[in-house]
């Protein structure tokens, strides 16, 4: 990601929120990253739950995680559970296509802070970020 040597640039980067978009679908990742960029949020991507967990194992930190549910290797439910077991306190928002109530409950019980149906809209994202920005 871009950095700046000027104090103004570094200060601006310090205040910028960082998001992790976890989704196995390239189109969805592209859309979400663009949505976040528009909201002045720095975004990284992970192709599945395992890659997301690895980000945290590498010591990376984020202000918000947008987590898809159905992914290969490791799904969003398992990834969320593992991240919470690791002590990750970051806001995790499930963003998934239509799920049954039981699937939604399972996902929430894994440790989600919130849940939205794909695709996330700009107003929904702004609401989510308000909470994160206020922490």
């Amino acid at each position, binding site marked *: 990601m871009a950095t700046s040597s000027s104090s103004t640039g570094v200060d601006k980067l310090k205040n910028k929120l960082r998001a992790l978009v976890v989704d*196995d679908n390239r189109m969805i990742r592209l859309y979400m990253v663009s949505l976040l960029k528009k909201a002045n949020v720095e975004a990284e991507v992970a192709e599945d739950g395992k890659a997301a967990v690895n980000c945290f194992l590498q010591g990376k930190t984020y202000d918000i995680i947008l987590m898809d549910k159905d992914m290969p290797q490791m799904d969003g439910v398992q990834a969320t559970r593992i991240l919470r077991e690791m002590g990750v306190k970051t806001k995790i928002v499930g963003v998934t296509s239509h799920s049954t109530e039981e699937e939604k409950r399972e996902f929430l019980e894994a440790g989600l802070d919130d849940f939205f149906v794909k695709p996330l809209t700009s107003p929904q994202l702004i609401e989510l970020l308000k909470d994160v920005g206020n922490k």
Partner: protein
Amino acid sequence: MEYSSLQRQVAYMKKRLFDQGYLDEQFYQLEELQDEANPNFVEEVVTLFFRDSSRLMANIEQALEKCPQDFHRLDSFMHQLKGSTSSIGALRVKNECTQFREYCDEGNLDGCQRSFQKVKREHAVLKQKLKAYFQLLRQIGPTERATPPGG
């Protein structure tokens, strides 16, 4: 004079795409992300969609020809396709993807095959329509803004 006529044509074309159910509100979300820094964002995303989705559909076609069918694999491919279609607001294609997945759940091969033909048809029609739309849009330049129906 000619410019405003082109603008009207573009607006009419877009309205038709929505009125006929080819696109839904998500397309407006894409347009909202287009700006001076990314003046061709929507067309780029749509181009990427058709490239990705064509590959997925080739995989589905191959999987449908296998015997015995792996409905789980078919459903997985279609789940991917549906996710992509929803990201650009390709409503008709998305609806056919949903139907296909229902047939997968039932283990209904015949249903899957019929449904997949519809997916291909809607995909091809949308591709043609959006190609024409973007060709016209390029003629008027990056001034067209998102306007949801009804205001």
